Structure formats: C-alpha cells, structure tokens
C-alpha cells in the first residue's frame, strides 16, 4: 500500500501488543449503526504512473495563460517569476514543516517570516505587520473587523465602490457575524472616490473607511484628500493596495493610512486560478495588539544569542478562544517566504523596473486604444498598470478575440451597470509592444 510502511508482519505484531487480532477491532467501540458497511463507490487506487497520466490528461483540458496574448489582471497579475524562487520554496524543510511553534527547530522559517514582515513594513511604510493572512479579500475582512474592535462603540463601515467586487463580497460575509452596517461610497464620473459624498456620510457612528488605490478601475486616488476628511471624525483609514504599485508610489503610512492590506500574489506568486495567494495586513504600532494572525518576533536564547519565535500569541485563538482577535490559525507562510525571496531577488532596482515597465506598457496600450474610433476611454491616465476602456458589444467582442488567442481583459459591466461594455485591461512587464500591437490590429480587423 503506498505511503504506509508497516508490513503485514509488523502490523500483526503491533496488534498483538494491543491484544487484538485485526485492525477492524480497533474500531469495536464505535456504535455499529454508524459504521460503513457497504462500498462507498470510490474508485480503486492507481499506481503513481497511472495517476500522473490521469492528472496530466485532466490538466490538458485547460488552456494556460501562456497560450494567449493576455491582458487579464483585476487583482491577479502575470508578472515574471524568477527561477530561483521556486527552487528555494521547494526545499522540503520549508514546505513539509508546520507553523513554527517550536522555535529551536524552526529558526529558518521564523527568520524568513521576520524578513517578510520587514519587507511589508518597508514597502508600505507601516510600523508592524503579521506573518500573512489568507488572501487580499479576507485580509480586508480582518482589517475591518480590527477597526470595529478598535472603535468598539461604532458599527458603521464605509467602503468605496471601486474596491474590488470580490473583496466587497467577502467583506460583507465577514461583517455578517455582527450587528454592523456597510455603506457604499460611489465614485465620480472621473473614476475617483466621491469626496463630497464621503464627507456628508461620515458620522459619529462611522468606524472606518475602506479605499482601494490603485482602485479596481486602475486609478491612483488622492489619499491625502481622503485623510483630511477622515482626520477630524476619528474614522480609521483602511487602504487596499497592490504591493507592486508601491515601489514608486508614496508609502501609505506617509499619507495617513491606519491599516493597509491587500494581496501578495504579485510578489512572486503563480496565478493558480486565484489561489493560493497571500494576504497582508500592516498597521501602526499602537494597534499591534488588535492585529490578527501569527507574528514572528526577534528575541534571545538562554545564552543571550539573537533568535526568533512566534510572539504575542495571547491574541490568538488557541489561548484566548472566544475572545481572540480572529479565529485564524494557519496562514500562507510558504507564499510569504516566497514573497521575501521575490523581493530579495528583484531588489530595489529590479522592483522599480518591474513598476516602470508595467506602467509604460499599460500606457502604451492606453494610447494605442485612444487612436481607435470604436474605443472610448472613460477615465484619465492616472493609473499604474491597469485601466478601463469602452467598446460596443464588449462581451461578444471579448469572446471573438479569445478565439484568436487574445484575452483582452475583464468585462466589468456585470459589477457596475454604469460601466456597461467596459473592459478592464492590465499590462505587466512580461508584455511586449508587439503583443499590444497585435491586440490593436485584431480590434481593427474585427470591426
């Protein structure tokens, strides 16, 4: 039997030690009414060879993103992943270990996560962060629950309409556990947050405001203007952001943000059909004790040498139970270690290049689309690597392009009725100018 080492002889020997003669007897104390008596109709086991064939065959029914000229983004982006990254995270000592509860035999994982925490703080400018959460959407859920704990006499949450629709959906579920209200703040015809609406709808019951920047439409918001409005009302400022937008954009901390969260897939993660990725959440040191999730700290051993361990664990479910900051237990450590490796391999200059190339290619696409009469561009050019464009019959048009092996973007009319026939397209540094020219030529041909 694969993966079971005990031989028949050993099994018999062990059973004998227990005074038993068969494995079935190990379950004698289970009530007979609940025991499975017939076959379950599961398939018979496969050899490793057959399993590989079966799964490769299933895989072959997919068309990978590499088979397309793709401009899909909307939260998951196809950036270049350095070879060294996969080699390191495939080390068995990283991927087959568990949460580093026993510090003395987990120093490697602990140090790597401490470095990850540092990287997130350096990118965002924030004081503190945890060792990762599940993904960007659930990180937003945790950020909002955290702000509701910090402002525990206020139960209203305001959320920008240009926060990723999937994130808003997840947030609503996270808020469903309590008696909280959620108000959507619209965006203006320019695609930016409606500051006037925000100001008029803040009240003494408002706990936090959630803004995404670059927002779901790709636009970079005026965070300082938002801060100015929130400041006097004692409302916490939560920002959802793309960490790969930060190598050139101002640190959220400097713009007065209280909690920053988002998805770290862009930091060396595969697309994986959207998961696993990793969620991050960073904040100011004064809110440290309300931070959910695992945290790694630096300390000393009995000889006084520097080392690492999990710390501030009394916030967590295994100690504080019903009073814990969250129920989160496992996180996405391996992806967090991967993110630290990605940031190390790219380095300061490499990250700026990834930013600059993605930015330039997206703007090249924007300008090429602008040349087409069929296309209109509803918003301005203050975006990083993603923007919205409009074409009549967008859905049909996207299908026709897909048949020509071009995935031009995501149709967003379903999320925003006012943006019917609008498409959200992204460029990463992996694109070439010729890919963009090919898209433009095909648009011309199809119309």
């Amino acid at each position, binding site marked *: 039997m694969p993966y079971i080492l005990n031989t028949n002889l050993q099994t018999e020997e062990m059973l004998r030690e227990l005074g038993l003669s068969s494995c079935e007897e190990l379950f004698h104390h289970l009530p007979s009414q609940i025991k499975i008596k017939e076959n379950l109709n599961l398939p018979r086991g496969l050899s490793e060879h057959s399993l590989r064939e079966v799964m490769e065959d299933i895989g072959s029914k997919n068309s990978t993103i590499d088979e397309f000229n793709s401009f*899909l983004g909307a939260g998951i982006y196809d950036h270049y992943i350095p070879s060294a990254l996969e080699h390191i995270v495939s080390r068995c000592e990283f991927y087959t270990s568990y949460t580093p509860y026993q510090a*003395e035999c987990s120093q490697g994982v602990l140090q790597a996560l401490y470095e990850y925490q540092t990287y997130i703080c350096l990118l965002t400018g924030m004081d503190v962060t945890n060792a990762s959460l599940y*993904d960007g959407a659930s990180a937003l859920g945790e950020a909002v*629950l955290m702000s509701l704990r910090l402002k525990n006499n206020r139960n209203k949450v305001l959320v920008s309409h240009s926060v990723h629709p999937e994130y808003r959906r997840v947030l609503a579920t996270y808020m469903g556990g309590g008696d909280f209200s959620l108000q959507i703040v619209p965006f203006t015809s320019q695609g930016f947050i409606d500051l006037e609406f925000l100001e008029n709808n803040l009240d003494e019951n408002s706990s936090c405001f959630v803004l995404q920047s670059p927002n779901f439409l790709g636009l970079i918001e005026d965070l300082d203007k938002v801060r100015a409005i929130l400041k006097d009302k004692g409302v916490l400022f939560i920002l959802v952001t793309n960490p790969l937008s930060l190598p050139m954009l101002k640190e959220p901390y400097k713009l007065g943000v209280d909690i920053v969260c988002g998805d770290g897939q862009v930091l060396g993660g595969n697309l994986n059909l959207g998961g696993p990725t990793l969620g991050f959440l960073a904040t100011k040191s004064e809110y440290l004790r309300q931070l959910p999730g695992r945290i790694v700290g630096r300390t000393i051993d009995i000889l006084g040498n520097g080392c690492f361990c999990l710390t501030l664990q009394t916030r967590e479910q295994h100690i504080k139970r019903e009073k814990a900051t969250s129920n989160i237990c496992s996180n996405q450590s391996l992806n967090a270690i991967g993110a630290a490796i990605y940031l190390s391999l790219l380095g300061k200059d490499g990250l700026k290049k990834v930013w600059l190339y993605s930015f330039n290619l997206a703007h090249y696409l924007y300008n090429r689309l602008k040349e087409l009469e069929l296309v209109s561009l509803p918003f301005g050019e203050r975006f990083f690597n993603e923007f919205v464009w409009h074409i009549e019959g967008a859905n049909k048009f996207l299908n026709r392009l897909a048949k020509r092996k071009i995935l031009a973007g995501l149709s967003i009319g379903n999320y925003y009725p006012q943006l019917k026939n609008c498409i959200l397209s992204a460029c990463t540094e992996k694109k070439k100018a010729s890919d963009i020219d090919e898209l433009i030529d095909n648009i011309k041909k199809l119309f």
Partner: protein
Amino acid sequence: MDKRLIFEKSEDGRENKLVNPPDIPLIPPESIIPKELLREDLPLPSLGELDVVRHYTNLSRLNFSVDTNFYPLGSCTMKYNPKVNEDIAKLKSFTHLHPYQPENYIQGALKVLYELEKFLCLLTGMARFSFQPPAGASGEFTGMMIIKAYHKLRKEKRYKVIIPDSSHGTNPATASMCGYKTVVVPSTKEGLVDIDNLRKLVDEETSAMMLTNPNTLGLFEERILDISEIVHSKGALLYYDGANFNALLGITKPSLMGFDVIHLNLHKTFSTPHGSGGPGAAGVGVKDELKEFLPVPLVDTKNGRYYFNYKLKNSIGKVKAFYGNFTVLVRACAYILRLGEEGLKRVAQHSVLNANYLREKLKDTYKLASSNRCMHEVVLSCVWQKEKGVKAVDIAKRLIDFGIHPPTMYFPLIVKEALMIEPTETESKSTLDYFIQIMKQINDEVNSSPDNFKNYPLTTPVRRVDETYAARFPDIRWKKSGV
C-alpha cells in the same frame, strides 16, 4: 553560518537583470502622476542571486520537517506529503490559469473541483461541498455562517453555540466571529462530552453544537448519536470540526453520526503539505437541505461542460476571492485517486493502530490522559515528571535533541502538562519504537538529572528561546540601525 539578516547583506549596485525593458520609449512616472503621490526612497536591499539562494537555503536547513524528522504534532496530522502530488500540482496546466479566464479554457480545473467534491461527498455522506475556504478556521467560519443564515431564514433567534471544553481554540473563536455566545459543555473524567450536562445546556436558543470527533483527547465520542439527538431535538444543528477525520476515513461518515455541516482540513487528512503554516485548504460540506446556503460559486455540469454556478438562492456570499486554494485542491484530488477506497480505509486503520501502539508502550512511563482506547492520537500528561520538577515543555525540548519534533504541548487545556501525540499512518513501527525508546530514556533522565532539563535542547542552532523577552519587548521587524 552567517547570521545576518537579508537586509544586512545588501551591496549597492547588485542586480539580477530579471526582466526585459519594453521596446518603446519610456516615459517617467512624474509625467503622469503628481509628485506628492510618488515616493522619494525605496529602502530595499540589492542582492545577487547567489546571495539570496544561499541565504534562504541555509535558513531552510535550520528547520525540522516531515521529510527530515518524525513530526508527531497532535491535531495537525503531519503525514508524509507524496512527491507525485507536488509534481502534478506544479504542472503549468494548473498553475498558469488566471481566475478570469473564460470557463471554456479551464474545463480541466473545473473537473478537478467537481471530482474532488464527488469523492468527499462519498466519504462523508454530505450532499455538496464548497472548497472556497483556504484553511480549517475559514471552513469553520463558513460552516457557522451557513448555520446562522439557516436559522435566520426560518426567523429563529438563536444566539448560543455549545462547545466542549476540550475543543480546538478555533471553535469558540469562530463562534464569536459569527456573533454567537459560546456555552462550554464540560467533559467527563474519561474525556468525553458530559451527556447529562449537555442535555441541560441545549435549548431553543441554541443555534448549534460544534464537535470534533475523535475529540482532542484522541477519543471517539461513543455517544455521538445521543449527542445528535439532544442537539436536534431543540432545533439546533450539529457542526463537525473535521480536523481529526483521518481516523475515520472509510470507517464511518459524518452523515451517519448526525452532523449537518462539516469542514475537512485537506492539508491534514488529504496529505497536502503544511508549508511552514500554510497554504492549506478546507472543504465545507452540508446536508441536502443546506446546500443553497453554500458560498458561490459551485461547479456543476450542463451538456457535458463544467460551469461555475452562482445561482444559489440563500448563499452566504464569499469567504475568499475566487475559488479557494486551487493547487492545494489538486493535490488532495490526486491523493484520493492514488489511494482509492481501500487505501483510504487503510489510512484510518494504521493511524489508529500507530497511536494505540504508542499508548500501550508508554502508558507505564507517562500518565495517560484517559483510560479509554484512543483513535489517531494519544494524549499523555507529564504530571509524574512534573513532581520531579520537569514540565511537559522541558520534555518536548529534550525530544528535539533526538531529532524528533515535539508533540503539541499543553493542549487540550483540560489536561495538565499535556503532550498530544499524533504519529499518523505514514510512520513505521521502527520509527515508533525509536520514539518509545527515547521517551523512556528521557523519563530516566528526569529521575536521574532533572536539573539539566532547563538547558535543553543542546544540539539546535539556537538554545532555549526566551519567549517572555519576545513578548515583553516586541521586535517584529528589522530597522536600519540609526533610524
């Protein structure tokens, strides 16, 4: 070994030239983005590829892992992670898929989700599964929100959730996240749910009971059908924390035990690796009358094509963006296909056999937490050793010196000086015999030289770590000196 942090190894000017400049004239960001929105400085290191590879490879060598060490961490099911599953999950045909690719182009991925659901329904007796939750705790949250939505739709006001005092900490934490008040039902001396007490606690205000079976003492709740009857008689639902399902594969099904909503930790029972703490994945299964409450989307078929079904009329919404931790689900599906029905049943048998073997061989040296036969894990109490001044944590740390990862310590909370040992089915009798020998040897050391225990472990890269210092003076990120 060079103990510096990665940031301290930076040398200005190092760069790995990983990406291509585009073949168009470049415009600078300040031509489009206002200066006040741009940052002045990016304080990240500059490193060569070898710097990075050597740094993290050396870090990896400081860890115990399943591939290198016996890892009997109770309630975590640290079984062997088959390599073929890694190869399969890393196929580009699974990893290079964008969540917004049209369904036509991801039929294989949808088939994986569909088949996995079918297999888990057969194993558990549930009607449908969602794989959106990325972890067990997220699965609990999903399941309890489903229960909340169920009562709400029936216009019933129920605010209590019953949880045994031996439960995982995630259970009460989840109940709180869902807005419920936790009511604790005590355990009997043997470590099982106190049925008489439970009968008094369950009432018309009870929403659900959350139960792990086998429980955290590794014991099967033999009166599970009484528990189910008591809970259901007041209109409450029974939630199954499937963290310990490994012991029951092919032996019984949650449906037969009376559970209405369940979660399974695929990174425990279904062999996907734990990744230093994640990513894992959970499946949340429900009985037929609750399937309309599951998160959207589910995968269904129509005219021989798979599609994402968003039309669930009472769906609780979403708990994670997109469709769950997909590549973890691929591994779980591969594992089930590899073992098949007979193999999965053998998993349960050998996990229980191995734990009982340890129990039998260690029962005279360490106090057993319960006199009952155990299932997949055994809980020992180090109270006899504590009388000599040696605590459970000291024994755990000593195990490291013998190349054994310590068991879960001080859990469940109702057992003093607890060591919770889960060997899993993938370990052999010879490994167990080595563990038994070492545990006895350590007990001899407790008798002969108890004072030495404060110093253990001796052979690790760092010595006993001061967790008190870490908590009193939190240092959770590096700062450049002088800043």
